[in-house]
């Protein structure tokens, strides 16, 4: 299956796009998404374990990912 991963702020700059499409095996988890991202050009500018949100909630690396989920990498937040 394929999922879209949203990128923001410094992460979008690092990977050169506001989102990327990631191919995943069935029964994939957030860790699989991160492993794919880590192989891409520019990913060396990201921390080893960036925060991830699945369907607009912070998720663990073990969180399951399904087709249609809204996945996002969350750079260090700086609101306020």
């Amino acid at each position, binding site marked *: 299956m394929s999922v879209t991963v949203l990128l923001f702020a410094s992460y979008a700059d690092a990977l050169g796009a506001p989102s990327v499409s990631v191919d995943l095996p069935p029964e994939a988890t957030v860790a699989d998404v991160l492993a794919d991202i880590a192989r891409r050009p520019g990913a060396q500018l990201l921390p080893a374990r960036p925060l991830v949100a699945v369907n607009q909630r912070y998720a663990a690396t073990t969180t399951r990912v399904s087709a249609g989920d809204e996945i996002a990498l969350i750079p260090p937040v700086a609101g*306020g």
Partner: protein
Amino acid sequence: MNAARLVRDPIDAAALVREVSAPSYGAILLFLGVVREVNDGRGVTGIEYSAYEAMAHRELEAIAAEATDRFVSSGVVIVHRLGELALEEASVGIAVAHGHRDEAYALSRWVIEELKRRVPIWKREHYVDGTREWVDPANRLVEVSP
């Protein structure tokens, strides 16, 4: 009552105060985070705020709701601005109200700390030398992925 919004227009301090007011409150506290001319010793000319808007809005609403749960009989309105901000403009406005001031101060402080901890909003500072940089408040070193 509680409410939370992302906006692109300037934050109206008086409107926030009016919105949170009710006859049962004796203390109202309005916190404004504003763009200052210096950060970490560098001259700043403006800040650009961006967000993962759907999630940021959801988190702001969750914080406002949790705040009014924690502090019974309180009011909370949170507004965060996005886009390009000039010096002295407010990026965030938090209006809280309670019967008594002890609780109003605690409530206001709790909301701003939660907001800074978990709402997916980012800022890029523009410096007097023409450069721009994303701000990492924790000053975490950017680690190289394995």
